[in-house]
C-alpha cells in the first residue's frame, strides 16, 4: 500500500458502505434539515437574525445549567 491509498473494488466498497446505510441516511436527512434551518435564518431581517442568535444563546445557557426539561419538550424560555 502506498500513501495510505488502498483501493478496493466498487462492489466491495459499496458493500462496506451498505453496512453504514442507516447512519449515512441519517447524515443526509440531518444535512437537509440543517440546510433548511440555515436558509430560513438567512431569509430573516438583520434584526430578526439578532433575536434568533439571542434565543440560541439563551437556550444554550439554559441547557448548560440543566434547567431545561428535555422530556416535556418545552422550556421556561418559550415565552421569551
Amino acid at each position, binding site marked *: 500500500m*502506498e500513501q495510505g491509498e488502498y483501493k478496493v473494488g466498487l462492489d466491495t466498497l459499496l458493500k462496506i458502505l451498505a453496512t453504514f446505510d442507516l447512519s449515512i441516511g441519517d447524515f443526509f436527512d440531518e444535512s437537509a434539515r440543517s440546510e433548511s434551518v440555515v436558509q430560513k435564518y438567512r431569509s430573516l431581517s438583520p434584526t430578526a437574525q439578532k433575536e434568533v442568535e439571542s434565543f440560541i444563546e439563551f437556550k444554550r445557557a439554559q441547557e448548560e445549567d440543566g434547567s431545561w426539561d428535555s422530556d416535556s419538550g418545552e422550556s421556561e424560555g418559550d415565552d421569551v
Partner: protein
Amino acid sequence: MSEATMADMTSRIEELRQRALEQVRADHFDEALSLYDEALGLTDDEEVRELITINKGHALIAAERTGPEVKALPMILMRRRNAHHTFLSAYALMYTNRLANELKRAIFYGQIALEAATEAQQTLWQVAVQNELGIVYETDSQFGKAIESFTQALACLDKKGVDDVAAQAFSRVAIITNLGDSTLLSGNSKEGLRLIHSVIDQIATPHAKSDAFGNLSYGYLDLGDFDKARSYGEQALEFACEERQVRNAHYLIGEAAYKAGDVDAAEEHFEQLARFYPQFRHLKSLLFAIDLRSMINLKL
C-alpha cells in the same frame, strides 16, 4: 521395454501433455484433466510425473477447482528438482494465492518464480511472472511496484530470443493495458490514457474491451473531460460480460453525467447500480454526494 519402445512412450506422454496444455489455453479444463490423467497412467518416471502433476495442478487452479495435485504444489516447490519445476510450481502457487486474495503469499511465491526464471535465463518465463506479479501488486494497491513489474515484463519482451510473434503481440497488448491501468490508478491519468489508447484497437475480447473502455472513462473523469468519460463508459457497458463490468459502467456513466450536469442520466445509471444493492436504501444519495472514484480499483 526396448529403447525404441521407451522413446515412443516418452513421445506419446509429451504429446498428451502438450495437447492438455492446449486444452487449458482454450479453457477446456475437463478435456485437459483427462489428458493429464492419461499421461500420468503411462509413466513411472518421477520427474515426468512431477511435471504433469504441476501442469494438472495449474489446470485445476485455472478451472477454480482444487485436488491432490494443487495440494502437492508446495512440496514440489520445496523439492526444487530443477529450475523448470521450481518456476512452474511457484508460479501456480502465486496465481492461486492471488485468486484467494492472499496477496503477501502470492508475492512471496512470485519472487521465487522470478528467481527461477532469471537463473534459467528464460525470457518468456520472466515476462509471465513479471506480468502476474504486477497484477498482484496492483491488487494490493502497490501501484509503483506494479508499474515496475509491468515495465520489466515489457523490457523482457524486447530482449532477443522471443521469436514467437503471436505470443509477443498478445503479451504486449495485455501488459501495456495492465501498465496503463496501474498508471491511471497511481494518479498519472495522462500517461495511463496514452498507454491504453496505444493498444485499444488491438484488444480482441469483449471482456478485455469492457475493462479497457472502463479505464478510459475513469481516466477522463479524472481529467474533467466528462463527455469522453461518458462515451467510454457507455462502450464499457456495451461490451460488459460480467456483473462487475456492468456495475462499473453504470457507476462511471452516472458519475460523468452528473459532473456534466445531466442529472436525469446520472439518476438513471445510479438507479441501475442501486438495483444490485437493494438493502442499501441511500445509495443514490451517497453517489450524488460523494465521488467514490479515488477509492476504487475497477478491476477488483
